[in-house]
């Protein structure tokens, strides 16, 4: 039995995990990162369009600040987000961009003078100020009132991941690649690390740590059509669920990205629309203004994806043998712009579709893209159920996205959460609370249990095959737990997923070797993915309202009166066939921005009884503070500053509003 000890065990080598690891290491702790793949291959690399931070350097970002980023994010979330966490995020995001700039990310910069841009498909001239020349620029993204998305061409995630990954190397933090966490070591109250499987040798090792940080990303691969990487199977969230005590929050909140190329499902960035691209139907009619006169193509993703599917249902999709799609038109942007700012998009179109987007339309249709839900944590990133267990990034439900995440806020969350939660992890390690008192024999029991489970799979000659079950689950999820949901379909999905879950205990393998055995890997993963799928489908069935990306055809209104709450899914008994659901109320009376109309999408909703009172209270307070600066007003509305590590409480300097 091999046991390795470390202070901080980070599971997941994407941006969130890497950044959290750097924070803990800089505070003097011993840190180890485990990753399924080399860290530079993580899914963070796929973030194309950019990262939201209210730098306000570009002329179209003028006047932007944390307050506006906060409001956009909360409206985007359809009021599902934790507003304190959103505040922590928007104050730290500009710092993250600046830190990354100092570490080497070649952010695109403001060029003084005139430049041609496209807004809503029409050419316009912008004049950038001399004083902003050379500062970090921004592009437009959906659901935002300012151009706020910092970018590196359309390889933002790539540049960020490589830069942070190289910082990990500079800080001499070991990354153990090609390993998979199989279970968390815990006693129901305290997490002590994880049992980890080497995907090459098949060997199991126990990693015992004061802090275990899950940064394992999303679970898009429970869907058939997804922009996600093949490794986004949600195993990290699933093994947290399998502790029986850690909760997964808002698993039914699944984002569908409007522009995945059809039919392969590969992402082309929201930057295409942000830079002026349009959505067209089979008659090459620009249909989004018909549905969304305010924000058109640049409403939030949930709204645009829904309108696209609605438009296809109305018979306006382009028919092909694989089904229907719509068009994304970026031809007006011209060769020079596309080669400079949308070059990955151009490569993807050329290699996977055989078309040139400089002159041709791109076939697109919404596809699963992001998991707003995940391991539920406090603002510090720690699980409320298991001491010493932290989570950050897409794996977590921190919860700054609520029921819909804005484009550019996920890659931003990875580094911001890494910065903040990394500090909290280091604080925890510094405290006496972090002392560990688990014996090696108890650790050995966890390894033995995992070994037994693998051995029985390897010797099983059951009649089910993992790829069949996986395919059926993915098809079910895409067909019945997709953009449009209803009781009938969700009920069917839950029943069929339960049947698949039962069948998955009868999976048989053809080989006996534990070393490099992809068949074994898919067999144990599919069982865990089914549990996540059940959390999603069952949570969606119970939530009888529409909020953000969760849309119920039979309950089309947002219902703040009954559903302004977060779903918490647990799996207390391993024999359960459904998760146990509980709900966490959101407190309207403490909100800085009480629920209202988002500024796009449906205008009708069922009001929360406290909303009007809170709104009146806020207006009165603002009146009584007329003339006070925005920081004072914000602090009076909702205290959050003490939730931030002192390191990140500073005010962000901008051109024109110098802070001293």
């Amino acid at each position, binding site marked *: 039995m091999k046991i390795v000890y470390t202070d901080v065990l980070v599971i997941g080598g994407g941006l969130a995990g890497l950044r959290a690891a750097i924070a803990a290491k800089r505070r003097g702790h011993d840190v180890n990162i485990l990753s399924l793949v080399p860290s530079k291959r993580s899914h963070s690399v796929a973030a194309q369009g950019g990262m939201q931070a209210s730098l306000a350097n570009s002329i179209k970002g003028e006047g932007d600040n944390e307050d506006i980023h906060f409001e956009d994010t909360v409206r985007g979330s359809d009021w599902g987000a934790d507003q304190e966490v959103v505040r922590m995020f928007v104050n730290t995001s500009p710092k993250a961009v600046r830190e990354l700039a*100092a570490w080497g990310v070649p952010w695109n910069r403001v060029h003084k003078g005139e430049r041609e841009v496209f807004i809503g498909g029409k050419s316009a001239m912008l004049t950038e100020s001399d004083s902003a020349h050379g500062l970090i620029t921004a592009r437009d993204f959906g659901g935002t009132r300012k151009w706020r998305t910092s970018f590196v061409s359309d390889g933002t995630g*790539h540049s960020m991941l490589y830069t942070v990954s190289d910082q990990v*190397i500079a800080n001499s933090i070991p990354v153990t690649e*090609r390993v998979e966490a199989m279970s968390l070591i815990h006693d129901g109250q305290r997490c002590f690390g994880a049992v980890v499987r080497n995907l090459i040798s098949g060997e199991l090792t126990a990693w015992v740590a004061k802090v275990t940080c899950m940064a394992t990303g999303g679970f898009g691969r429970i869907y058939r059509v997804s922009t996600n990487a093949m490794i986004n199977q949600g195993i990290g969230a699933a093994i947290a669920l399998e502790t029986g005590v850690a909760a997964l929050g808002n698993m039914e909140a699944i984002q569908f990205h409007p522009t995945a190329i059809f039919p392969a499902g590969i992402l082309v960035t929201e930057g295409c629309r942000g830079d002026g691209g349009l959505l067209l139907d089979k008659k090459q009619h620009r249909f989004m203004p018909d549905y969304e006169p305010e924000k058109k193509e640049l409403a939030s993703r949930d709204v645009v994806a829904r309108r696209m599917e609605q438009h296809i249902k109305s018979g306006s999709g382009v028919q092909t043998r694989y089904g229907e799609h719509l068009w994304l038109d970026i031809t007006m942007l011209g060769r020079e712009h596309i080669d400079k700012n949308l070059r990955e998009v151009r490569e993807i179109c050329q290699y996977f579709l055989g078309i040139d987007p400089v002159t041709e339309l791109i076939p697109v249709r919404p596809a699963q893209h992001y998991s707003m839900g995940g391991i539920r944590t406090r603002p510090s990133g720690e699980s409320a159920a298991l001491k010493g267990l932290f989570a950050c990034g897409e794996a977590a439900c921190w919860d700054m996205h609520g029921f819909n995440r804005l484009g550019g806020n996920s890659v931003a969350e990875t580094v911001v959460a890494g910065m903040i939660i990394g500090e909290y992890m280091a604080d925890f390690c510094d405290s006496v609370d972090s002392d560990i008192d688990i014996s090696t024999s108890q650790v050995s029991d966890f390894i033995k249990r995992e070994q037994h489970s693998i051995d029985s799979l390897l010797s099983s000659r059951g009649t089910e095959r993992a790829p069949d079950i996986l395919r059926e689950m993915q098809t079910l999820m895409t067909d019945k737990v997709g953009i449009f949901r209803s009781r009938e379909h969700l009920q069917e999905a839950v029943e069929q997923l339960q049947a698949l879950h039962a069948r998955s205990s009868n999976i048989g393998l053809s080989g006996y*070797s534990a070393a490099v055995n992809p068949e074994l890997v898919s067999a144990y993963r599919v069982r865990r993915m089914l549990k996540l799928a059940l959390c999603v489908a069952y949570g969606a069935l119970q939530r009888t309202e529409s909020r953000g990306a969760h849309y119920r055809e039979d309950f089309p209104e947002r219902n703040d009166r009954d559903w302004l709450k977060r779903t918490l899914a647990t799996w207390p008994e391993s024999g359960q066939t459904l998760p146990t659901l509980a709900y966490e109320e959101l407190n309207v009376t403490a909100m800085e921005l009480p629920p209202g109309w988002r500024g796009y999408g449906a205008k009708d909703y069922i009001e929360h009884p406290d909303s009007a009172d809170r709104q009146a209270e806020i207006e009165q307070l603002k009146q009584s503070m007329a003339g006070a600066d925005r920081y004072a007003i914000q602090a009076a509305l909702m205290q959050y500053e003490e939730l931030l590590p002192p390191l990140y409480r500073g005010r962000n300097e901008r051109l024109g509003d110098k802070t001293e």
Partner: protein
Amino acid sequence: MNRQADNRQLQINILRYNPQDPDSLPRMQLYEIEEADNMTLFMVLTEIREQQDPSLQFDFVCRAGICGSCGMLINGRPGLACRTLTKNMGEKVTLAPLPTFELIADLSVNTGMWMRAMSEHLETWLHNNEELDVDKLEQRMEPELAEQIYELDRCIECGCCVAACGTLQMNDKFIGAVGLNKVARFRLDPRDQRDDADYFELVGDDNGIFGCMSLLGCNDLCPKDLPLQTQIAFLRRKMMLMGLKGSRKHSSN
């Protein structure tokens, strides 16, 4: 995938070997598979594993040509399997793992370990010891320079240039085009405080810039079309000038 009566039958010949298994011997194994529309080698290999041979080992992560996981020899040439369309190839396709890297099994090689060692050796991170105040305005940079840096920053460490390198076949300590390009990238970045004397210490020898024989397989086969030829030539010139001046270490000898 839609099937047509007149679809081609592809013959996929794969070099199989699992060093983890003492009974495994290197061998070619042939799989037949019906072609589908817009079929990529990602789809081919996934279907073979699901339908015909669950033991076949390969690596795909993004399947969109951006993560660099699926470099392999495709009919003898290094390339990214995920974005290789079968319609651009004949009916017979031969696949083998990238050479030079440690073999994990079948088409899977350990590029991660190689790249980490390269990064540690060349210190491929920005060297700057100025105190950073993240609350303050960022340092300015000319927009064109930022774009030029990104041009070199686009490397995905797929290993195709390493596998395509003639020099590396003879000298396994050679840092390859991937390493030279990274040096060129940080050399171009004014935020990095290293100077040519520092870079000369890293690459001013036969394992670095002077080892390159200019066969330029790297430049021909880079999936991201990085300007490796011009960068290597430029770096060689700068390092030669530095060598003539004498690097810090050498001049003190």
